[in-house]
């Protein structure tokens, strides 16, 4: 009988320190990811509360729950918070931060201090946004269209703009960090075409963040200049051009849509391959599709402006480019579907989220074609059709993928398993709640109900009531994970390093991982998704 020497298991990153100080001064990408997750969860539910108010008001055609002013502030707050404080940082700053170094076999990101600084910028931007809310809010819509935002709105536009300006730098620094990390810190043997698709999506999104976000910062500064000092840039009374603002704004904000959806595509590629125990179908095409979307994404902003007074010919060019960008998205949907072919498909919660994503993303993407077609967009733009379309992408797509990713990597992040039954229930409830909320909005838009309406004509009520009913279910489905995930932290079963029998490098280390991720730097000898 041999004696086995008991080797103490390596301390995990969670056991590095327990005090508040150890968290607020950490340079560990995994801890920073958790800091982000806390902030993002807070803002998600705050933005959700604003959406709940909006849906509640719209149950009846009359504006009877709140004043028009309050309603306008509610949807503006919902938009600002969900776009800049939830969707844009959601996957990159939490899952990206946590997983990127693990997936490429690195000890941390390239600039750990800058990473922490990014989080403080995020918090700083959040503080201004909350201050704006507490002082009375802003009523311009998240798009800050001029000259309403610069000369007519009497609400706290500047505070909101400052908040968004600051949080923009958080995303620029995160993008910079990711680009350098992927270029310089890949483990031996981790060549570019051995990168998991999630890493490719982080690379693409980081490029977009670094290139597009400065334009947002510039545009917001110009708003502040005009509002504070009356410098005529966008207001025609001062010699400016309000349509110029829309060009600037969408030059950032359309790529921002891809900042939100590319990471979701990356997550889903990991989830589907692990769920189906199958190599991704058409890996290289998936990579080219990611890059194609990121590049062409910079050239389609004008499709937001077909009726804005843009030239007829410019609109034709933006229209054809918008159809072209739909091709790589289609490639991705077909490849995910084909990955299931001859797979060994399990239906754990992450897989349910991923399958839900593919369905909802497809509906959102295809309805985008209607809006890319100039002649149809004339009728549909600025109606609920657009609202439904982008919620299918942003909520049906990005949020489903984010939650799917959180479930998939939860055992890696916390070392615990959650209740599978509850998680599946929440995923299915979310899918149905989502469709009930947003599908009626396609019909509303098609029948001509404009968006951002506090009151509406009685003929639109049926679909609005259905939508609000769906929102109730959706809200409940979003609350569920808070409880069972929190429960799992204490009571969940120990996960072990690789509960899904997945192939990524992140599954080769302990759960939760040690502070520097790997006991030894791994050497990579094969491509990603080494399933069958």
């Amino acid at each position, binding site marked *: 009988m041999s004696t086995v020497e008991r080797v103490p298991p390596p301390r995990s990153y969670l056991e590095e320190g327990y005090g508040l100080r150890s968290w607020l001064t950490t340079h560990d990408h995994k801890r920073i990811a958790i800091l982000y997750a806390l902030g993002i969860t807070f803002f998600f539910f705050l933005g959700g509360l604003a959406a709940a108010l909006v849906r509640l008001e719209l149950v009846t055609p009359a504006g009877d729950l709140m004043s028009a002013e309050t309603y306008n502030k509610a949807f503006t707050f919902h938009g600002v918070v969900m776009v800049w404080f939830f969707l844009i940082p959601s996957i990159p700053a939490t899952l990206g931060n946590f997983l990127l170094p693990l997936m490429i076999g690195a000890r941390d990101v390239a600039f750990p201090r800058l990473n922490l600084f990014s989080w403080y910028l995020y918090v700083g931007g959040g503080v201004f946004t909350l201050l704006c809310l507490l002082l009375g809010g802003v009523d311009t819509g998240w798009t800050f*269209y001029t000259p309403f935002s610069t000369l007519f709105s009497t609400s706290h536009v500047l505070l909101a703009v400052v908040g968004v300006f600051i949080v923009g730098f958080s995303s620029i620094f995160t993008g910079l960090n990711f680009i350098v990390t992927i270029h310089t810190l890949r483990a031996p043997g981790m060549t570019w075409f051995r990168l998991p698709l999630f890493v490719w999506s982080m690379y693409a999104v980081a490029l977009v963040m670094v290139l597009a976000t400065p334009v947002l910062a510039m545009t917001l500064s110009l708003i502040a200049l005009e509002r504070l000092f009356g410098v005529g840039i966008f207001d025609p009374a001062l010699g400016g051009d309000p349509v110029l603002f829309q060009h600037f704004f969408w030059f950032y904000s359309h790529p921002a849509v891809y900042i939100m959806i590319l990471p979701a595509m990356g997550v889903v590629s990991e989830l589907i391959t692990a769920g189906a125990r*199958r190599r991704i179908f058409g890996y290289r095409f998936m990579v080219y599709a990611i890059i194609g979307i990121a590049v062409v994404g910079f050239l389609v902003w004008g499709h937001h402006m077909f009726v804005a007074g843009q030239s007829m010919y410019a609109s034709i060019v933006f229209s054809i480019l918008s159809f072209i960008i739909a091709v790589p998205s289609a490639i991705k949907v077909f490849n995910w579907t084909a990955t299931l072919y001859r797979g060994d498909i399990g239906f754990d919660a992450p897989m349910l989220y991923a399958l839900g994503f593919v369905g909802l993303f497809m509906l959102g993407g295809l309805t985008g074609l209607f809006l890319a077609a100039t*002649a149809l967009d004339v009728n549909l733009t600025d109606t609920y059709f657009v609202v439904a379309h982008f919620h299918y992408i942003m909520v049906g797509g990005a949020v489903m993928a984010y939650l799917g990713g959180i479930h998939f990597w939860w055992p890696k992040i916390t070392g615990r398993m959650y209740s599978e039954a509850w998680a599946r229930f929440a995923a299915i409830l979310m899918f149905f709640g989502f469709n009930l909320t947003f599908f009626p909005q396609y019909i509303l838009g098609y029948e001509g109900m*404009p968006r951002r309406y506090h*009151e509406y*004509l009685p003929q639109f009520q049926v679909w609005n009531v259905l939508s609000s009913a769906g929102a109730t279910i959706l809200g409940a489905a979003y609350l569920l994970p808070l409880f069972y995930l929190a429960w799992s932290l204490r009571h969940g079963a120990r996960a072990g390093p690789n509960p899904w029998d997945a192939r990524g490098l992140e599954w080769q280390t302990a759960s939760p991982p040690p502070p520097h991720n790997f006991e030894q730097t791994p050497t990579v000898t094969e491509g990603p998704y080494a399933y069958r």
Partner: protein
Amino acid sequence: MNTLPQASSFAPDVDHLFDALLLLCGLVVVGVFAAMIFFCVRYRRGSAAERMPARAHLGVELTWTLLPFVLFMGIFGWSVHLWIRLRTPPKDAQPIYVVAKQWMWKVQHPDGAREIDTLHVPVGRPIRLVMTSQDVIHSFYVPAFRVKQDVLPDRYTELWFTATQAGTFNLFCAEFCGTDHSRMHGEVIVMAPADYARWLQAHAGIGLAAQGERLFRQFGCSGCHDPQSGVHAPDLYDLYGHTVPLSDGSQVLADERYLQDSILLPKKQIAAGYAPIMPSFQGRIGAEDVLALVAYLKTRTHAAEDTDEHR
């Protein structure tokens, strides 16, 4: 396919394109969903289905790259064809001028007829709207016609259509324009050509609350509160008996008392979306005059204005 009336010459063509794209997308959705469900059932974990290793399929990839591309280009071409028509008014189109303002549509017909929040047009004749805004960006949207165009300050934008059936159709503002954006709607009234001609000539005459209206100009109220004013002030149309949102988030019913207070103590309740710039008229205006003004304000409705201006 739709419950919206097809009331312009564009509407059926736009709907055909919509239906074609809907059919195409529907086929894609059904195809992908069918494949997903089939794979999920057949290759569920533990099933006995045969599972071969994955192989590269360049041909398959190219097929589902190029096929959608070709179909998309087809839809694009169809759409552009229609788009150019939508954006190119015929030379003989009848111009009508539209001025948007927070939160109303003012329409001026070339012969001098004016209306607010309504637009009367004849059936079968191309109409070209020439539009501008006095303040922020608005958007002129008539769903039944399938037309929409943003209306910009200090710049003219155009929209044209030929109405094809008589009736009353909704007009909406589709671009968020501030507090009462959702109330900035009206009606497009399409009439048979003979009825339209009669309408143009009609001299509907109702008096305003004459004294109040005179005072309204005498005291300079109209300088700020008229729709034509460059000052950003409420236009006071359809005010009486309606709820007014205030800048502190509360609401007030516009009764006689509110109207009187607003003249004498304008800083007391500031209407949402406006700066508190109105001077007080306390001590400068007699009680009877205030009553006369309030009486006038009670009649200051778009409906009254509409008939009045064609007298």
